[in-house]
């Protein structure tokens, strides 16, 4: 007949269990306590943290080294230590601080096999953490210890050995040393072992061959290539984790020894397997996209190959099916692969746009996880490198612009900078209207960020404003500069960071491009953009800054008499007695520069100053008197055709020398 089911006793309170550990006993009376602690903490982060606060770990670790601890106690204590270290960083730290590693290492030689197994399993868990100590394999004793572990018949110990290699082997000298000691062959032999042995061995082989062509070459030669063939076979293993680790291993070999992988077939197979693995549950599916990104890297060839096997469609398919439910890590990985695919090739970007990727990922710009928001910005940034689609206004809509603008105020700086990069490209929007960005409140935020103390944020904001200013209507240009203020612009032009100076100068140049520049922005009583530019050009400035500065002056000189005169004041020395080698007389230096654009921008400035349609004879005389016009004679030998032609134009207008006819130029080219 039915009877009342036995009721399990309620769990003992952690405080009670922890206090029992303090009893000073190390005999078997502690076994129930240890078992119960271990059972409570397995898979339970909260309980682990609680026991850490109760300082249980040092007491348990002490049992490992106590000579009076019987084997069953040591087994449970080791298992508990391993459990504390599993998946909880604070637990790993506590275990390491309590000195568990050396005690567990000693236990690997214990006469009781169960103790050895328990110690080995716990050590393996510890060595999965980045916090675990690293073995220096250049020390002979460590290498000897490792080899003794690899030679063991105990599966847990050989797995531990492989884990230690995977965790610790980093330097090329260590890789070579382990390879020379025969460690790679031993690891290869584990590929035929149990699933765990295979996985840890694959991890270890990846660590040893990574970026080491010499070791990679030796690996592919093992057993006349049979080891490599085994590895290839593991790509088809029934366990997803093994397939993933096999891919990682092959990619490490490919990157160290690319000649061996010239056949596209293997790389295509890797791409397809990794695309499949993205659908797997758990960590395998989360990590697969990162491995895929590592594979295709910056290789245009692999980008093309990935596209040809419908990688973009599949990745978009994953997003369409499950972006609301996918783990943040996996979303991050998928987005980074899409961003990578859009980074180089126009055909890739075109395909991603056709697949509606921008619309697909817009809501991911609001994802809870900052990394996902960053990755989504990267996708937009890379796809919007497409000039064709920028011209077609594909990225100027409110639906894309608004979320990006909101990210400019994100609490995470890395999100802000990623959003700034995306806006920087989107702001170019080569249609005549940039209304979404102008009306979104983005201008105000960009101007604030241009004053940021964070150097990267500041630089990217100024660059974004520069791009926004590109070919904008005069009315909108004036609005932006009113918001930014002339004062801030002059400060930016004089910023200590040369990169900021260059962007600010380009921003100023874009502002004065086009007609109708209001004098109120250029000339004021206290602050003058042209004075700031002039100071930079006369100082020690980089070629990039000088180029932008000269284009600013060229644009000014194309406006009206007042601005032309201002440019003349800027470029000519204050006294005609100054020689042309005076540091203030930068124009001649620029005309002689190795930088093509600097020569060109200087020539255009001069062309605009002495435009023959304008009243300019006094300017011509001043430039001639300062010896500038005569410098133009050297332009006949300029290696840049554009510079040569502008030099000819100047000389033609001012009777220095008749330029060669078009026929002569062609004859020169053809000879």
């Amino acid at each position, binding site marked *: 007949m039915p009877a009342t089911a036995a009721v399990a006793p309620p769990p003992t309170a952690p405080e009670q269990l922890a206090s029992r550990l303090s009893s000073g006993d190390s005999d078997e009376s502690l076994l129930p306590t240890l078992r119960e602690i271990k059972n409570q903490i397995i898979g339970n982060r909260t309980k682990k943290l609680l026991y850490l606060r109760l300082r249980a770990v040092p007491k348990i670790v002490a049992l490992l080294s106590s000579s009076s601890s019987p084997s069953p106690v040591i087994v449970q204590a080791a298992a508990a230590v391993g459990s504390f270290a599993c998946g909880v960083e604070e637990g790993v730290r506590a275990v390491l601080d309590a000195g568990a590693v050396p005690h567990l290492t000693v236990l690997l030689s214990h006469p009781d096999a169960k103790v050895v197994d328990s110690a080995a399993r716990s050590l393996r868990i510890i060595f999965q953490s980045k916090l675990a100590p690293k073995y220096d394999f250049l020390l002979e004793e460590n290498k000897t210890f490792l080899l003794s572990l690899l030679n063991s018949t105990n599966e847990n110990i050989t797995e531990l050995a492989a884990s230690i290699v995977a965790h610790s082997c980093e330097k090329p000298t260590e890789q070579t040393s382990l390879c020379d000691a025969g460690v790679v062959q031993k690891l290869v032999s584990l590929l035929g072992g149990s699933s765990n042995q295979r996985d840890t061995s694959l991890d270890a082989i990846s660590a040893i061959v990574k970026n080491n062509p010499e070791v990679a070459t030796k690996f592919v030669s093992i057993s006349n290539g049979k080891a490599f063939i085994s590895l290839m076979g593991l790509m088809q293993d029934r366990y997803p984790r093994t397939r993933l680790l096999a891919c990682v291993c092959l990619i490490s070999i490919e990157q160290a020894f690319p000649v061996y992988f010239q056949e596209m077939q293997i790389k295509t197979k890797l791409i397809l397997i990794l695309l499949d693995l993205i659908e797997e549950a758990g960590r395998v599916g989360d990590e697969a996209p990162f491995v895929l990104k590592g594979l295709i890297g910056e290789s245009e060839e692999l980008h093309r190959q990935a596209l040809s096997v419908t990688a973009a469609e599949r990745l978009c398919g994953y997003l369409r099916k499950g972006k609301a439910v996918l783990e943040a890590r996996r979303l991050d990985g998928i987005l980074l692969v899409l961003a990578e695919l859009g980074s180089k090739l126009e055909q890739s970007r075109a395909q991603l746009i056709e697949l509606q990727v921008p619309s697909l990922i817009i809501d991911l710009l609001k994802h809870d996880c900052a990394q996902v928001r960053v990755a989504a910005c990267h996708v937009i940034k890379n796809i919007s490198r497409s000039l064709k689609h920028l011209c077609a206004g594909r990225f100027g809509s409110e639906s894309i612009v608004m979320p990006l603008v909101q990210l400019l105020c994100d609490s995470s700086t890395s999100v802000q900078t990623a959003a700034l990069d995306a806006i920087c490209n989107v702001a170019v929007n080569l249609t005549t209207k940039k209304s979404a960005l102008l009306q979104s409140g983005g201008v105000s935020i960009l101007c604030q960020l241009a004053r940021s103390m964070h150097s990267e944020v500041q630089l990217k904001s100024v660059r974004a404003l520069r791009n926004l200013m590109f070919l904008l209507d005069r009315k909108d240009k004036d609005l932006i500069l009113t918001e930014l203020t002339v004062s801030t612009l002059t400060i930016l032009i004089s910023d200590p960071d040369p990169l900021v100076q260059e962007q600010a100068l380009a921003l100023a140049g874009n502002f004065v491009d086009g007609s109708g520049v209001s004098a109120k922005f250029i000339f004021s009583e206290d602050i003058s953009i042209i004075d700031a530019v002039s100071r930079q050009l006369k100082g020690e400035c980089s070629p990039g800054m000088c180029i*932008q500065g000269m284009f600013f002056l060229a644009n000014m000189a194309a406006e009206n008499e007042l601005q032309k005169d201002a440019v003349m004041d800027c470029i000519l020395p204050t006294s005609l007695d100054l020689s042309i080698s005076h540091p203030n007389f930068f124009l001649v230096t620029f005309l002689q520069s190795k930088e093509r654009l600097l020569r060109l921008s200087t020539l255009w400035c001069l062309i605009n100053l002495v435009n023959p349609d304008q009243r300019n004879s006094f300017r011509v005389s001043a430039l001639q008197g300062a010896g500038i016009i005569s410098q133009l004679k050297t332009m006949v030998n300029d290696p840049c055709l554009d510079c040569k032609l502008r030099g000819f134009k100047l000389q033609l207008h001012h009777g220095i020398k008749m330029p060669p006819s078009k026929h002569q130029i062609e004859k020169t080219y053809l000879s």
Partner: protein
Amino acid sequence: MPVRVVETTSPSHSSGQDLSSAQPSPPSCSLLCAGRSFCGTQNVSSLQKDEAWKVNVRIQGCDIEHGFLCGTMEALNVPLADTPVVTFWEGEIVDAKNHTFFTGKWEATPEDDIRHWSKFPSFTPLLSQIEDDGGKSLDLSNYPYIFMRWKEQYFVNVGADCGLTIAGFYYVCFSCTDGSISGFYYDPNSSPFQKLELKCMNAKPGGFSFSSYELV
């Protein structure tokens, strides 16, 4: 100025390329850049009548490295239209790397290509070097003319049923010296050799000005 497009990824090489031989620089000119405007006429004469439309062209984007540019073309006093007709076009720059003198599409055969390019006096010295392969080994970086093809993609301000056609494309020759443009429209179904002639315009009263952007 040539628009400076700076990308943060480092340039990569396609497999199989001989890295020891440097690629010639693409042809470029500071008068052919985004923002630059041109105006002139397109001769649309037929056997029945003489006719010319006023045309304004604006370059909107220019990627010299990839031999791509694009812009708008506005045709005024078009008989069939109440307003100026604006189209968006994309262009290919003949640079031997991205594009050769041979079109390879748009119903233009190599013979059509040579026939049209030969209408430009500046092309004549190059003819012997392009007959075999369209000029794949030509270095045009120091030639004072830039050759392009412009293909209109769509109407911007009128419907496709406006009675006008954009089925063909232009063979274009740009003079680096003064920024002037000549072109010939090619469309097997339209009057042959309709000529486009444009001059480069100053945006400002006192000369040429320049704008730039930087993609990341």
